[in-house]
């Protein structure tokens, strides 16, 4: 039966195997789509459709629940350019962005460096304690800090008076020049420990041999920090900066709870200004246009993050 060179069974098997492979591939497609479908459907309904719909709706004028929309072209976008509150909100996002990067990442890197190199005991204790505020909701942090800043019962004014100083007369949250910094302080209280923990994870992967070698060269800890720790954990620090920046673009809860964007819109950020226009003064068309602007900014930062995390 066999020709002696090629086993008969293998010859006979060729077409059958091909069929089985094709059938197998079809089953694989079927399984894959069954597996992917739920995520894709839920995501399409609650994210993709609303995003597309927001873009559409930004060309109309309407109230939040109005069934009738009035097409206005680019009018909402033109309004944005002339709206000083929008620019103020954008600037406030900028203040939070720069302030958060300086305080949270700056402070987080210093704390992480100290924790990873400098101490022998208490590391877990400090890390746990510094991370704990992340577990509180931003709303809880906001309510707490609103009372801390309160001119009547607030502990901050009590401390300042105890030092014989005079607290700001309009209150911390009532003074348009102070309010953004008061908000920033509350946000930093919650998130500096978070950034520290991210950076710490990166610094702990620095090989100990590097420090041993530098000790032989007689380097001190400050030199170690600048010549070893910082360069080696550069990628983690960049990731932390990007996470912090994206958080600043999306900021909403802390501002809403502390000030609702007040006094007189002075602490409005893009997020709260969208909410204000759509849900408070019922200008949903204008709010949609602002939402599109936010979307563009956020995608810009998202692309930046994708680029950098790919390198990591």
């Amino acid at each position, binding site marked *: 039966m066999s020709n002696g060179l090629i086993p008969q069974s293998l010859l006979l098997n060729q077409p059958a195997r091909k069929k089985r492979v094709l059938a197998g591939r079809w089953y694989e497609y079927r*399984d894959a789509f069954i597996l992917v479908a739920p995520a894709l459907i839920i995501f399409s309904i609650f994210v993709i459709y609303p995003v597309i719909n927001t873009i559409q709706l930004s060309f109309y004028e309407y109230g939040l629940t109005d069934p009738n929309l009035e097409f206005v072209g680019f009018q909402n976008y033109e309004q944005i350019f002339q709206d000083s509150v929008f620019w103020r909100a954008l600037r406030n996002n900028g203040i939070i962005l720069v302030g958060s990067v300086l305080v949270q990442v700056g402070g987080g890197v210093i704390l992480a460096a100290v924790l990873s190199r400098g101490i022998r005991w208490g590391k877990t204790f400090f890390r746990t*304690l510094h991370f704990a505020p992340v*577990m509180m909701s931003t709303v*809880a942090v906001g309510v707490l800090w609103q009372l801390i800043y309160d001119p009547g019962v607030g*502990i901050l004014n009590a401390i300042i008076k105890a030092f014989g100083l005079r607290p700001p007369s309009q209150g911390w949250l009532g003074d348009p020049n102070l309010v953004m910094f008061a908000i920033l302080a509350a946000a930093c209280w919650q998130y500096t420990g978070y950034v520290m923990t991210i950076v710490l994870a990166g610094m702990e992967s620095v090989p100990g041999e590097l420090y041993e070698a530098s000790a032989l060269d007689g380097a001190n800890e400050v030199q170690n920090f600048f010549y070893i720790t910082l360069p080696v954990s550069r990628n983690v620090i960049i990731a932390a900066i990007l996470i912090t920046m994206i958080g600043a673009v999306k900021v*909403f809860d802390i501002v809403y709870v502390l000030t609702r964007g007040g006094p007189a819109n002075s602490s409005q950020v893009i997020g709260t200004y*969208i909410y204000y226009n759509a849900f408070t003064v019922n200008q949903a068309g204008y709010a949609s246009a602002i*939402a599109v602007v936010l979307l563009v900014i956020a995608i810009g930062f998202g692309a930046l993050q994708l680029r950098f995390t790919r390198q990591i």
Partner: protein
Amino acid sequence: MKKTISKDGFATGLTYILLSAYSIVIILPALWMVFSSLKKMLELFTAPFSPPVEPQWINFANAWSAGISRYLFNSLIITSVSVLLIVVVSAMAAYAFARLRFPFRVPLYLLLIVGFAIPVHTTLIPLYRTLNSANLLNTYPGVIGPYVAFGIPFSVLLLYAFFVQFPSEIEDAARIDGCDTWQMVIRIVLPLSLPAMSSVAIFQTVFLWNEFSVALITLSDDAMRTIPLGLTTFQGQWTTNWPSLLAAVTLASIPLLLIFIILQRQFINSLAGFSK
């Protein structure tokens, strides 16, 4: 620790001073919160720094009966159902993306991942209009739907990274033993990926337990409110009853803090380890 700066006592001292200073910054507001939540209103003004003379547990009873119990229950239902759905749905999708070959695999994956960059505030208006016309405002599904959707991108990303590294030899062995895809997933892949999935679950639990924006537009009915939303209700109502308001904030913060202290390694790995 390969080496510490023990040689240099001055630097060590400085290190502890720095860490302690920041610890005080963290502890002081929290301590003030707990002390004040146990005080009488008048004590807040007369003795702002001291511990309560006589703990006023009534403030906690007030907060509890004024709605915290109901808000806790809502948060528990909404968070647990959402997290369960996120993990199941994301793990299924991530497994397919990592392990199976099918048309449009890459574009579909990118479509899901791009959602990571989309701020929820860009979707609130259509979300509200849709939920309103579907009569889903003030319902659990109305808030769980968006929660699951916004949890998917990051979860798929993490689980995809896990499944890609998953040794295919184990799967091949299972196939040789005669398992089909489904048996293999349930008997082999699922048990082995529990750590990755619990990491995703922890991350989403913390995020959703504290979520505010979607809850704010979806749940206006007091009986449906979650913990963060309920706190803003108290904030509006108790403008002169600060001890009870702070008791509410304390009560609202306890559950996650407690779980965090018990499972802190897992929590820190889940919430802060993803940049590695």
